[in-house]
């Protein structure tokens, strides 16, 4: 598999990281990713990532659950095998509300978690590289992807000038465990110009 080159810089404070992300983008570097130990609100916007559509997926799963419950119970109790429960109508929708609700929630929750795992490519036994082990502890790691035009020394000095520490070059094999490089551009709203 192809090996790609990354320039990585760590940040110890998110208040340094935010302006750095803006400056890096303005300077035209391509941010591969920023790895953080906890969610930082607004960082996705600063990086130019588009909003996630996971909510929409959840809604669709929920509706599927509702439809499944209504459809199945209606079929089972009014068409397939009618049973007279105390003279009540076969189609007794109010009595089905609890199960319809539960299945809506169940489908939405299970569907969303599976979709989340699929989109992030998370599963047991998956091994991924995130450049710095401390980025799940107390450092924020920014990885820049090198293109043909990238001048290594310039990028390193630029990273250092905007507050990054432990700046270095890392080579990683590209593959699904590193994130999906093939659709990389889809993750950004606009194609980020790569220069230097």
């Amino acid at each position: 598999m192809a090996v790609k080159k990354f320039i990585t810089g760590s940040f110890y404070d998110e208040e340094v990281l935010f302006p750095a992300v803006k400056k890096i983008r303005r300077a035209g570097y391509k941010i591969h990713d920023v790895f953080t130990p906890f969610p930082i609100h607004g960082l996705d916007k600063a990086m130019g990532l588009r909003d996630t559509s996971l909510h929409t997926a959840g809604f669709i799963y929920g509706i599927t659950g509702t439809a499944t419950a209504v459809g199945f119970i209606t079929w089972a109790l009014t068409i397939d095998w009618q049973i007279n429960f105390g003279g009540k109508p076969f189609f007794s929708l109010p009595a089905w509300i609890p199960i319809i609700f539960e299945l809506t929630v169940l489908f939405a929750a299970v569907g969303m978690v599976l979709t989340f795992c699929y989109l992030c490519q998370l599963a047991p036994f998956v091994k991924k590289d995130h450049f710095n082990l401390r980025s799940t502890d107390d450092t924020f790691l920014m990885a820049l992807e090198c293109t043909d035009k990238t001048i290594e020394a310039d990028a390193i000095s630029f990273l250092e000038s905007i507050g990054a520490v432990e700046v270095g070059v890392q080579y990683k094999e590209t593959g699904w465990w590193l994130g999906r490089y093939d659709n990389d551009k889809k993750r950004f709203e606009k194609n980020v110009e790569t220069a230097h």
Partner: protein
Amino acid sequence: MSLLRYESQVRPALVEGGKDYHQVTEDICRPVEAKPSKLWWIGFLISVALLIFGIISVTVEVIYGTGQWNLNKTIGWGWDITNFVWWVGIGHAGTLISAILLLFRQGWRTGVNRAAEAMTIFAVMCAGQFPIWHMGRVWNAFFVLPYPNTRGPLWVNFNSPLLWDVFAISTYFTVSLLFWYSGLLPDLATLRDRAKKKWRKMFYGVAAFGWTGSTKHWQRHEALSLVLAGLSTPLVLSVHTIVSFDFATSVVPGWHTTIFPPYFVAGAVFSGFAMVQTLLVITRKVLGLQEYITIEHINVMNKVIVLTGSIVGIAYLTELFMAWYSAVPYENFAFFENRLNLNSPYGWSYWIMMGCNVLSPQIFWFKKMRTNLTVTFFMSILVNIGMWFERFVIIVTSVYRDYLPSAWSTYYTPTIWEIGFYLGTFGLFFTCYFLFSKFFPVIAIAEIKHILKRSGENYKENMGVIDKESVDQFAAEQLHDHH
């Protein structure tokens, strides 16, 4: 200090001791990475012993049938369903803390949500045992599922609250598990990246699903947590509502009341918070996490206890009023003879319930009591006893003497196997909890870091300056306006 993170000085710090990000990781990972203490082993072994006793009790019941329990002609549910409702109720506090308080943006939930969610899952596991083994011929338990069968196919009765329960409890368990585990992923990754031993790297490597902390992943993770919280909130209300329907849709005096759903939900949150207190007062001490589960956390939870306890108290009084106001002799008999009358066979259980649930939590109106750990622990046990008796009162005192005196049952006391089964679920619950507290971080590391710069003690101190400035400015403006 960025003003964006400003939090009023009126709110006490949620993380004490001047922590930075790395120290948070260290503190919370320490109990997981250290060898278990002697106290842990003692607790764990007692739990396993109880679990084994429970397994024996259930085995006896399966071999010889439910006749091994002292259930009789009118008391068909007895201890078994009492325990079921009790355990389900306990689970509710975990979801309340993790989901409802997330929607309300309550910062203090971060210190306690992980342990509370774990408690939910274990409590629901325990609860599930009771209706399953109560079936007697447990090998036919799958009959409750709507699957194509050779008996028609004869479908399950979708109009029955007992079937609603099957769906509610199983959905609740699944969703709670997913919510809990998706929240655990980042913290398991932290443990994986810190691991030095090979088996640790393997175990947490597998468990963390390859989490990296990528910004895109965090964005999706936040979206997922929020929607799961939004789903869990009505779900948790629905679960105990449906449990209450098991009673409320019947025509038994004492059960047939419309007040049951909100009354059950409030009671569930009440007992759940008591169990959270029981667990956390010990956990914070044994694992040395007093700086993360602070006295303030205990204080806030005690406020919830006094609130929900009082709601439950109002529900009890409303029931009594409605029984009197309805002028139905059977209702009157159920409430004023079977329950309220201390000299009736089960009158004592009603007064234990009243004393533990309504009277005793009132001491939490005093801050001194709310912030006293011994009182809190003692009270949490009392509330759990009281809430167990609430379910016992509802189940037993309603049916042992209802309409026809000729159908009144004899006095019901549990057999050793009924008690053993109940103790066994304690074994299951605490075995799970001990394993959880050994192998998983009991506090959500990432979430604590997220609130650290807003609610950490050292960061809050700096905000005092802003507070002082704004007060001065406000005073100046006021003076200016008056002149």
